[in-house]
């Protein structure tokens, strides 16, 4: 700053200097968060959590946001000419000479303004910009720096510790499944494969697609093994458990996997509608198709027309006009392995009821359909029970078709059955003893190898005959 500068020039120079300082302070306030955000984005990119496009977009967005915020902050703090004049007065003990000059304009006697300017110019010589107006950082800048560092540290620690916190980490799940399978010597080869997959998953440099492929491979191997074991009639419980474990690893709620855009079909279907569909699985037809390796048709058969199930089920070409939707849904269901059914059965009751309702509507009048439907419901309930851990029994795969004979391939344990004894017209019952009536009712209770619906289920009012109070006296 020249010592002979006019006071107006001094005020303008001071304002520019203060504005530059304010701009720097605003920029310094937002640079640490910007760098921290870039670091996090770059970190995620390095470990393949974000793609290059996402990194570019995020980085640019953060930069633009920081620039906008810096501009906004600077706009609020940019000094005006009056502020500069005030500071000049303050530093030079100018007794408001600079303020007056900066604001008065030409409103006043010329000789007064001239004299004031002369006095201010003399006082301006006392001002040294470097000494009187040095750049000073704000406390807010330091706070911003500390906050940005803290954010980076927290992110880094969270990144390191997150897998330990979440049991659903995919590599850990796969390792656990491999250990479980390794306990059975016949699955040692499969256990080794899955263990190798788990090892691969631990490499953080893997891309998201690669991780998906590894999990999918593991699941496929187990599915194939389950199918093979079922054909041989072997125990697949440990395989089911391992598959379920791996499947849980692929669930979206797993924090470590939630960032991965998984494309596993059953993972994305765990909504309420899925639950409703799941309720119909107990009809057995879908499962039967699964066993027979056929798709389509599904439970549409025997429901809309009340015909015997199985005939239409196995023939997609004979579907009614309503059936294609069912067929699609059935296909989707059929894609689900057995170990996923329980997941589906855990869905909301509303979904279940909807499923039942829709199934009931489609069932029509046929008796067989009714029985099938109820059996389906019962299967669900058993599934519920199993899921809650109260029973370890395995639900048979499907219901026997009408007049289907039990063969070697289809052993009784693979078929569901329900024996219903319709109440006989007994004239003695009206006047019989209570013991006799109790015996009758006990005899009339249905028996099955699948859990039946509770008699008080309002959906199953047909099973329970409510006796109006006014008729009780007549019967007695």
């Amino acid at each position, binding site marked *: 700053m020249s010592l002979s500068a006019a006071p107006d020039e001094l005020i303008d120079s001071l304002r520019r200097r203060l504005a530059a300082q304010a701009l720097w302070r605003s920029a310094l306030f937002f640079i640490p968060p910007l760098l921290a955000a870039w670091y996090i984005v770059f970190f995620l990119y390095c470990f393949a959590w974000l793609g290059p496009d996402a990194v570019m977009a995020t980085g640019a967005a953060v930069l633009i946001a920081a620039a906008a915020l810096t501009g906004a902050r600077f706009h609020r703090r940019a000094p005006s000419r*009056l502020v500069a004049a*005030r500071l000049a007065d303050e530093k030079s003990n100018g*007794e*408001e*000479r600079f*303020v*007056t000059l*900066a*604001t*008065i304009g030409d409103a*006043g*006697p010329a000789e*007064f*303004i001239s*004299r*004031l300017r002369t006095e201010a110019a003399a006082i301006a010589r006392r001002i040294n910009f470097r000494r009187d107006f040095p750049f000073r950082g704000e406390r807010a800048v330091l706070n911003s720096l500390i906050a940005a560092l803290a954010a980076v540290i927290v992110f880094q620690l969270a990144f390191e510790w997150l897998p330990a916190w979440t049991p659903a980490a995919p590599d850990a799940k796969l390792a656990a499944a491999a250990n479980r399978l390794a306990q059975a010597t016949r699955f040692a080869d499969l256990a080794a494969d899955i263990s190798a997959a788990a090892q691969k998953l631990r490499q953080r440099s893997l891309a998201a697609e690669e991780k998906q492929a590894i999990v999918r491979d593991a699941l496929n191997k187990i599915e194939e093994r389950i199918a093979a074991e079922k054909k041989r009639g072997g125990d697949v419980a440990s395989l089911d458990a391992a598959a379920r474990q791996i499947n849980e690893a692929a669930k979206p709620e797993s924090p470590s996997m939630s960032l991965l855009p998984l494309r596993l079909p059953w993972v994305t279907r765990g909504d309420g509608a899925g639950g409703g569909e799941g309720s119909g699985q107990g009809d057995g037809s879908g499962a039967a198709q699964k066993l027979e390796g056929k798709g389509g048709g599904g439970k549409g058969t025997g429901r809309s027309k009340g015909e015997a199930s199985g005939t239409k089920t196995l023939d997609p070409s004979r579907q009614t006009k309503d059936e294609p939707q069912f067929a699609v849904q059935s296909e989707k269901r059929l894609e689900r392995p057995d170990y996923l059914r329980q997941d589906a059965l855990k869905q909301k009751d509303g979904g279940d009821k909807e499923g039942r309702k829709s199934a009931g509507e489609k069932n029509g009048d046929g008796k067989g359909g009714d029985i099938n439907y109820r059996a389906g419901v019962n299967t669900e309930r058993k599934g519920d029970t199993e899921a809650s851990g109260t029973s370890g029994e395995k639900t048979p795969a499907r219901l026997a078709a009408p007049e289907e004979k039990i063969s070697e391939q289809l052993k009784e344990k693979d078929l569901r059955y329900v024996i219903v004894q319709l109440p006989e017209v007994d004239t003695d019952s009206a006047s019989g003893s209570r013991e006799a009536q109790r015996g009758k009712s006990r005899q009339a209770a249905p028996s099955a190898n699948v859990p039946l619906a509770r008699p008080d289920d309002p959906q199953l009012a047909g099973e329970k005959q409510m006796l109006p109070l006014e008729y009780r006296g007549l019967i007695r």
Partner: protein
Amino acid sequence: MDPLEFKEIFSRIEAEIKEVIVDHADIIRKALVAFFAGGHVLLEGAPGLGKTLLVKSLSRALGLSFKRVQFTPDLMPADIIGTQVLSETAGRRDFQFKQGPIFAHLVLADEINRATPKTQSAVLEAMEERQVTAFGVTYPMELPFMILATQNPIELEGTYPLPEAQLDRFFFKLPVQAPTPAELTEILHRTTRPDQQDAGCVLAEGAPAVIARMQLLLRQVLIAPPLEQYVVRLVHATQPNGRANNGAVEQVKNYVRYGASPRGAQSIILGAKGNALVEGRVHVSYEDIASVVYPALRHRVIMNFQAEAENVGADAILESIIASVPRE
């Protein structure tokens, strides 16, 4: 008139008065500033503190005419402004207006609160309009015109406190304090000697014209808009229920009945300008404003009964206002 000339004349007048009046330098300066700003001054103090002497000395130093009116309960308006008397001129009898004591450059209204409100109000028109209306005829006052009123804060029995409208017409209200022992000693030395000294005349010839130029110069002093805004904020802060005065000081809300009028702001600005000229500046600073806030506003802030009961004065209220109102 040059600012330096103004300062020189002012200093000489101030020095002449200080030759007579012991201490009271601030009162002398404020009274002179009020005079050059065209205002009137209310001096409040106990008897015997030199109020009358101050006014006499001022008139002598300025070389202006001086009249004194002792306000008493039986004083009538005509006793102040004048009346018509029957006079005979060349064998013809006619009513002629005989000017009262108010027709002077400097008028001392001694113990103004002892006169009835009717008489007090007789000076209102003269104070504000610089004219007197008697018997339907308006008589302009000779300029410069200044009323210096005194009132006694004790012996209030039988007095008539000045109404707010009249108080508002006084530019400054200056309290005259009792002298310190040293000042009293000096007073004794000066007043008990055989050769008592009066104030010398500074503006002997053409005093009114010079004073008029000085008054004009005072109004030309520069004041920055931010400083004007500060004055506005100060005056506005005295309003307990003013429009949008949500940030009123708690003491103002509790103790003030009425706040300062726009005349208060005018007094602050003109007083600050006069102070700036006296300090040799052609622009007003915050210090100039701060120096005149108390005399300009203390009689314009009307306290309520609670303030009187708790002995809270206007100066205490103004102090809190100055502390709370930001300069920027």
